[in-house]
């Protein structure tokens, strides 16, 4: 059994990280499909703003709800579901569930800061993704969740996001903003003294007084939700570090993506997150022999079209040289990744497929490269 087969059968969460354009989404979908075919209930989840997952599953589009992929009669017990996270409604979902009553919920929905936070600003999306991940994970509807993360910079935000909103909702800060607001209600004017007064005035200057007032309302509404939020952050952080979770570093044999993969290998080590293994997609291969194209194909080519044979044979020689060059270059990069991954981590090399994967049949073709044979 290859190490990846083992992870697919045993783990509860697989997180695919890596740069863009390396087939991360396709790998996530293929892995999820394999788990489903082995009888598990699987959700493949993307927080990518682009619609790559829909592409590779052959769906025209899907949104913030879990969509079941029809596997026909390929499995009796397994299920494959897919979902793409859409930040605003996800945040709405979270608020609806954690707000203590509908009045609080509606007040939050109506707050200007909330409305903008819910989706327009980059960064909040990653946070909401972890919330949603936590929900589906906790629902126990799935045996395995395969998470596809966006390209590098955001993926790091994704790892950090549980902490980021927690800092925004830091109780100290909330209290600091709430106090002047409440005192104003009591005394009819702001009672601010010392450093607080200076800082408050500066923030007022930078962000505008209206904003600070809105913020006070915002924090007031969020005050009751704070503990729930913090618990969830801690739970998500724990989930990422769990022994039933594995991170898969996905790369292509290109210089920038290998750089990013090495960066992730370092980050996972530093953050003490569980590394499952490394996938290198889209690798070209060619024999190292320089072919005598004329001897190999000349007679056959001239027999069918003598005038065209010469130029075409030259072209074929050039094409094979290009392929050899590329294969050699890529082999070096794979080696570099092996060294970076270390001797205890498996690195799986997946050859470049003839056609692009955009349906289940395409994903199935990938399986023998992902799962068959030894590591």
């Amino acid at each position: 059994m290859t190490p990846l087969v083992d992870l697919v059968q045993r783990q509860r969460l697989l997180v695919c990280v890596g740069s863009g354009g390396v087939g991360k989404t396709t790998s996530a979908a293929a892995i999820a499909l394999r788990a489903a075919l082995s009888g598990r209930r699987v959700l493949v989840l993307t927080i990518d703003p682009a619609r790559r997952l829909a592409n590779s599953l052959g769906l025209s589009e899907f949104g913030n709800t879990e969509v079941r992929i029809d596997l026909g009669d390929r499995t009796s017990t397994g299920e494959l579901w897919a979902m793409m996270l859409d930040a605003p409604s996800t945040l709405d979902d979270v608020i609806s569930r954690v707000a203590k009553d509908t009045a609080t919920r509606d007040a939050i929905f109506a707050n200007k800061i909330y409305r903008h936070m819910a989706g327009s600003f980059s960064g909040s999306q990653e946070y909401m993704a972890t919330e949603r991940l936590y929900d589906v994970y906790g629902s126990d509807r799935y045996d395995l969740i395969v998470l596809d993360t966006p390209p590098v910079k955001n993926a790091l935000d994704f790892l950090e996001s549980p902490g980021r909103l927690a800092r925004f909702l830091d109780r100290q800060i909330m209290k600091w903003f709430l106090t002047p607001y409440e005192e104003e209600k009591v005394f009819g004017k702001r009672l601010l003294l010392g450093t607080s007064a200076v800082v408050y005035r500066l923030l007022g200057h930078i962000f505008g007084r209206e904003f600070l007032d809105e913020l006070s309302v915002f924090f007031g509404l969020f005050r009751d939700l704070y503990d729930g939020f913090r618990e969830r952050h801690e739970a998500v952080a724990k989930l990422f570090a769990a022994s039933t979770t594995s991170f898969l570093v996905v790369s292509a044999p290109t210089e920038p993506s290998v750089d990013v993969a090495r960066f992730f290998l370092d980050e996972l080590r530093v953050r003490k997150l569980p590394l499952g293994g490394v996938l290198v997609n889209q690798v070209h291969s060619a024999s190292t022999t320089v072919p005598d194209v004329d001897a190999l194909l000349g007679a056959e080519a001239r027999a069918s079209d003598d005038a065209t044979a010469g130029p075409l044979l030259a072209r074929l020689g050039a094409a094979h040289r290009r392929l050899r060059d590329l294969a050699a270059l890529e082999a070096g990069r794979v080696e570099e990744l092996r060294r970076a991954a270390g001797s205890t981590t498996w690195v799986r090399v997946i050859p470049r497929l003839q056609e692009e994967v955009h349906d289940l049949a395409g994903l199935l073709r990938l399986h023998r490269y992902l799962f068959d044979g030894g590591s």
Partner: protein
Amino acid sequence: MAVTAAATGAADSAVLFRSRVLFVSGKGGTGKTSVAAGIGRLAAAQGRRTLVLELDNQRPSLTGIFGTRPTYAPVEVSKNLSIANVVWVDALGDWLEAIVNLPRVVRLIMRNHIVSVFLEATPGARDLVVLWRVMALARSYDLVVVDMPASGNAVAMLSVAHTARGLFEQGPIRRCADDLVNLYAQADTRMVLVALPEEMVVNETVETARRIGADLAPLRVPLIVLNRATPPSLSAPETTLLSALLAGPSDGLAREVLEAGRWEAELEVATAESQKRLTEELKLPVLVLPVLARGEGALRVVGQITAAMARVSSVPVDLRGGG
């Protein structure tokens, strides 16, 4: 390999060099950074004082291209060409200083726990401050080329200006957002998307270009760069003969040579299809940059892009100047 980039009119790509601020984005892995660097080198070679920027990148990719690590303060890498990395904390310090104008107070603010957490955690504040720095730098150069995050994230980042206007009614943040919206509307502010001749990359490019139209109007997208392309060069009889040979019996090395031919033919078809789709679906000109014969160092990529763009912009360029 023949350069067929001339398929795009000289006027279309020349527009890039008449820009003051040029955002470069595209799906991850398409070669955004190389294209941004290539445009920068060419503009510098034409005598424009040019700055190529990365935005708050912990591991700046420009380092590999120019052999110099871009720092917050622009570094000159060759005549007329500088590079920099807009580190957000440094940008924040500069921004606060521009507002408060008292370095001591700025240091106080930066050290204050509440303020720093607030600024770091307020969604969007980070992006606004980084973009503020881009605008500030743009005043000192003829052209600023910005290597943006990948497609969707680039649009989200630039959209921060519009959303901040809904959130902040006054104050420096609001003014910064107003300035940005104003910048997008300028005739010499442009955004270029880099694509590859692959179906999914083209899908994402089309989607991103439409999102720019919807969320960032009137920001101009003058053209799409189709990078690492294999422009069609097989003649019809050659294609027919190749198909016939592929259909026949062959094995071993002969088969591999034929498959290499098929591989290249497919790359040609993919390039033609991608170019057609981008042109038809977006109604934009496509600048085709042929793939390198050997995938060597990043500097070669930049040189090749520079050369291909110089050909289409029909401006004589001294390529010895760069990097």
